[in-house]
């Protein structure tokens, strides 16, 4: 597509439920990133996928968080047993070649997750 697409745009869930957030990157972009943005804060790195390489999961805050990328394209971020502190905007970005310095990231509009 023309841009990075994320769905849903908003998600309200009850504490303890699992949620799945979807990201559809720009066609041909080999690198995909997930970030989390809490209210009034900067972006916190979660996970990075590059082609067929093992993902960099160093930013995932707990084992309740996981992500996969199928066929080198669409990615799903899953949060199990959601907690109120998981409430945030989850942003996905993609880039060519995984080298941000040449192209920068292109971000989606994010999924606003609210855990009640």
């Amino acid at each position, binding site marked *: 597509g023309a841009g990075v697409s994320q769905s849903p745009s908003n998600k309200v869930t009850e504490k303890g439920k699992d949620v799945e957030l979807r990201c559809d990157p720009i066609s041909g972009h080999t690198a995909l990133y997930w970030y989390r943005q809490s209210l009034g804060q900067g972006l916190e790195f979660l996970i990075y996928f590059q082609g067929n390489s093992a993902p960099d999961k160093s930013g995932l805050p707990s084992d309740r968080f996981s992500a996969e990328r199928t066929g080198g394209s669409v990615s799903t971020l899953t949060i199990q047993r959601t907690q109120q502190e998981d409430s945030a905007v989850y942003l996905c970005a993609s880039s060519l070649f995984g080298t*941000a310095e040449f192209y920068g990231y292109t971000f989606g509009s994010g999924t606003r997750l609210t855990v009640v």
Partner: protein
Amino acid sequence: GESVGLHLPTLSVQEGDNSIINCAYSNSASDYFIWYKQESGKGPQFIIDIRSNMDKRQGQRVTVLLNKTVKHLSLQIAATQPGDSAVYFCAEKTEGRRALTFGSGTRLQVQP
């Protein structure tokens, strides 16, 4: 640990004035820096970038200055317009690492 931070959380300027948004970073291994603009309800949008082997780069109405001696980065916006109102983030990348580290953001408010 490494961090990227901003001096001013909110900057208010008059339309037509120049704006300067500052950012400090702590990681000496940072080799690439980016400024992003984020409007309400949208994802961050790339504005301008600069490599660590440069000290200045200019775009359309924007200039980024990098002072590696004091680990300081700034974004200058010329003739600020109402459409420039947004939150601005600086971000840095460490050599060998793919992910960007973002600062907490500065809100720019342009007064008519």
